[in-house]
């Protein structure tokens, strides 16, 4: 795992190991938990194939994997954009990429017939369009992170307004379906929905992992990055593509799950005690956060399931505030 960070301090190793263990534990719990409880033994038997269980391998496993992988993707997307803008507020959900992807999906639902292919294309196109608009508007005699964030907040507000307007204009059944999806939800996710998103996310994460060293160099400042041989223009383009790709892919399947992209990198960097916004802790924290939130969302109102976005927002927000409080105490 050395590719993700230059500094392999003991703390980073411990953090990585414990976050991995936590994610695995939560995943196992997610496989056990459901309308009927299955023991860990049953789950292991079903996973290794010695015993067939439709419930575990066809219903629960895709959902758990989606929670972990989507969480990691959102965490990386957030870390990439926060690195790019050098600002914690520069994460995709704040600057409107989620909202843009959701607009594309809404267009696919209300105007087209709303097949899963149209949903995916719609949200990727929506996310790309919004990021292109933000980038073009904020690029003015040089690149400024803060300017990008403020313009992103403005674009986010406008796109969210458009979304509300579309929902208000739509027919009742369509509107209810769209609103139920608007908080982000992993309810009813199956293997068929996941093959393409998983491969896309895998490619994007692998690309980012190859360039993680350059990202760290770039985070040290433009001058240092150029001196150490990093092509900033191409790196930025790649980072934008990865960030938008991850966000839009997740939104296409699970709806706009807000706040993980903002909170996970910030929580991860505070846990790692790192100076910048490192990618690996962000990815692992995102995975733990989304999987944990999805479990809680299923448990809180059982048998009905809350949208996971509601829970992830509440938990992630409280934890982030607590971390910030500790920071003030130290300062």
């Amino acid at each position, binding site marked *: 795992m050395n590719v993700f960070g230059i500094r392999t301090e003991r703390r980073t190793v411990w953090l990585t190991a414990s976050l991995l263990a936590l994610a695995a534990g939560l995943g196992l719990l997610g496989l056990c938990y459901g309308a009927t409880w299955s023991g860990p033994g049953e789950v292991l038997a079903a996973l290794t194939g010695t015993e067939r269980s439709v419930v575990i391998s066809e219903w629960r496993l895709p959902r758990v994997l989606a929670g972990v992988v989507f969480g990691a993707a959102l965490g990386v997307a957030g870390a990439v954009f926060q690195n790019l803008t050098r600002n914690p507020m520069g994460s995709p959900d704040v600057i409107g990429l989620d909202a843009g992807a959701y607009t594309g999906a809404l267009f696919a639902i209300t105007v087209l017939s709303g097949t899963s292919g149209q949903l995916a294309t719609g949200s990727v196109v929506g996310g790309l369009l919004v990021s292109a608009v933000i980038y073009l508007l904020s690029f003015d005699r040089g690149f400024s992170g803060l300017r990008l964030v403020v313009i992103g907040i403005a674009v986010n507000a406008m796109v969210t307004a458009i979304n*509300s307007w579309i929902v208000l204009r739509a027919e009742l059944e369509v509107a209810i379906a769209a609103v139920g999806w608007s908080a982000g939800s992993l309810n009813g996710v199956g293997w068929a929905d996941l093959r393409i998103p998983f491969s896309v996310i895998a490619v994007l994460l692998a690309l980012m992992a190859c360039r993680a060293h350059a990202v760290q160099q770039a985070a040290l400042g433009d001058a240092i990055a150029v001196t150490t041989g990093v092509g900033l223009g191409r790196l930025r383009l790649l980072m934008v593509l990865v960030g938008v790709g991850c966000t839009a892919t997740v939104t296409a399947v699970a709806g706009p799950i807000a706040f993980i992209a903002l909170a996970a990198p910030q929580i991860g960097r505070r846990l790692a005690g790192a100076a910048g916004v490192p990618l690996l802790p962000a990815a692992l924290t995102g995975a733990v956060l989304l999987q944990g939130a999805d479990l809680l969302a299923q448990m809180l109102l059982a048998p009905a399931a*809350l949208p996971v*976005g509601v829970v992830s927002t509440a938990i992630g927000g409280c934890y982030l505030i607590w971390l910030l409080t500790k920071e003030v105490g130290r300062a």
Partner: protein
Amino acid sequence: MTAAGHAPGAERTGRGAPQAGLLVGGLVLLAVVAVLSIGVGARAVAPTEVVRALLDFQGTDDHVIVRDVRAPRALLAVAVGAALAVAGALIQTLARNPLAEPGILGVTAGAGFAITVGSALGLAVGQAGELAFAVLGSVAAALLVAAVGRRSPLRLVLTGVALTAVLSGVGLGLRLVLPDVFDAYRFWSVGSLAAREQAPLALPLTAIGLALLGALLLSRALNALALGETVAHTLGAGVARVRAVTLVLITVLTGAATAIAGPILFVGLIVPHLARRPAGGSVPWLILYTMVLGPVLLLLADIGSRVLLPTGEVPVAIVTAFLGGPMLIWAVRRYGAGSL
């Protein structure tokens, strides 16, 4: 509120004449937009008829509509717009942060959430109860965010966004758990002026009026504070007292505006950005300009909320965002994001 009992130093800045001219221009714009806003709706009323209804009431259908429905609603839009915009200007000056805004810092969310919980428990009854809960909620949110986020502008914004997210998440969750009790939250989750003019609103309007007056009285002391703590001390401003009074004003303005119309974000962010350049670094002028431009923005948004849907109304908060977004982008591109 006696911290700085001077009138806003309009004449002493030396550039008073052009700035006063701009202010008069803003007031004329406000009057035009207000007349327009009273005229537009399900039944259009001609501008001349609007003026006649206000000055010389005859009792025709148009006059009754203007007097009983449209004019009170326009008045509400003016009060809420001014309150939110001035709260934004105060909070940006106090935090020295161009991103600060009651909505972004979670103060609005605190007020809305407190009203929801209060009415669910049966405590926030009537205007006084709603106002009390709104102010209580915004005070709690402001204190929390200020305590966690002090000394670092980015941490302040981060805390505010996190708090807003938590409150909206918990609010949505509670609504799903207790659908009957939290039905009221639907109103408080999206700001709207529709049908609010029918409720008795004397108390929140008075609170807004007093707080706006207080902001004007305080603005010279804030001018000193904007130069930095040391300079403010040297100029003889009681830094801690000015800060405390400003915080009270911000929470009263935000709480009262939220109690009237629900959470309307963005007005407090955009209007100070638009007003800052013409104000030229003077806090008194900034507050005067925001006091005029805030109502203009909200009145325009309110007109939009009535014409954008063929049937019914769009909540005004949605239109505010749509109008305000381009304005903010223009201001940032024209003047830069960090111009304080």
